[in-house]
């Protein structure tokens, strides 16, 4: 048991001694959030000293994160109150102009909408029926004229062939 623990600790220590770029990049996140413990931090710094690519990467990361502490202050606008007052006046005028309108709208609008819908449905239905009747009549007339003219009865085929000869 003890041997196993010892082996594990030694391998962990050796791993820390040889921090590679991948470990270093993972450590950058931990280091930036301030959670890194002392031995790991030392190894991390040692790796940065020996690897220029990781050092550059960490420098870029650090210089970007540090900007979060830099506060962009916006200067107050001396006309802000006047603009707010104007908007508020408009809102108040709108409210007084439409004073009594909400209850009127609440009752009348659905009634008018329902009436409009019913009239539309009734009108559509009537129009559809009217169109169908007329259409059927026209069709019947057309079929009658086309079907009952029998040319063969008037002039037989044999007669026509003899005439052609």
């Amino acid at each position, binding site marked *: 048991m003890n041997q196993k623990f010892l082996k594990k600790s030694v391998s962990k220590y050796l791993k820390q001694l040889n921090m590679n770029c991948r470990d270093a*990049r993972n450590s*950058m*996140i931990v280091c*930036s*959030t301030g959670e890194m413990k002392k031995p790991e931090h030392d190894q991390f710094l040692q790796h940065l000293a020996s690897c220029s*690519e990781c050092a*550059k*990467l960490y420098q*870029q*990361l650090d*210089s*970007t*994160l540090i*900007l*979060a*502490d830099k*506060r*962009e*202050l*916006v200067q*107050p*606008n001396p006309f*802000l*109150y006047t*603009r*707010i007052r104007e*908007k*508020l006046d408009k*809102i108040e005028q709108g409210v007084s102009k439409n004073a009594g309108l909400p209850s009127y709208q609440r009752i009348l609008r659905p009634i008018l909408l329902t009436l409009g819908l019913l009239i539309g449905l009734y009108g559509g239905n009537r129009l559809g029926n009217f169109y169908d009747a007329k259409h059927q009549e026209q069709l019947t007339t057309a079929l009658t004229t086309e079907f009952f003219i029998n040319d063969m009865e008037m002039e037989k085929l044999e007669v026509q062939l003899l005439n052609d000869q």
Partner: protein
Amino acid sequence: MTETQLIEGILSKQEKYFEELVNRFQPLVLNTCNSFLHNRTDAEDISQEVFIEAFLSLHKFKKESKLSTWLYRIAVNKSLNFIRDNKKRKIIRSIEVFFGGEPKHKLQLADPGLEDAGDLADEEEKMALLHRAVASLPKNQRVAFTLSKFEKLSYVEIADVMELSLASVEGLIHRAKRNVTKKILSHYQKKIA
């Protein structure tokens, strides 16, 4: 003039009290909106809406928290709503462009990918990268991180504004820091590769 006097004065429709409220809290509201929007014009527009909302609903304000906390809350909500609506406008604009039309307006809250920051000047590029990394965070993490880092509010104040426990705020800020760092790191790693 105390906060209570200010509130009572506004509720009794005395103009000077509302003017005093706007003047006193303008820096707080304007800077909070700007921390989320990173655009002065938009921040001013949203600040106006914040004060109008405050004026119209001051009667609902329970004096359990400070007036500044209440104003912070309105400013954060209005700013987040603005960002959400801006995203919708952005979708409409992309549809317009897809069908061959020219975009009618340029969005000031452009949200290019993290890779597109290369053309900006060094510090501006870094600032833009940071803002985009923060903007990509989940809503609560973004609010907590912004109030903590950009607005320099204490964890207790953030907990009051967000109506969360102190532990939740600590957790949110911790996760936000990790996520922001990861995003920035992956951007630079891609640049190196």
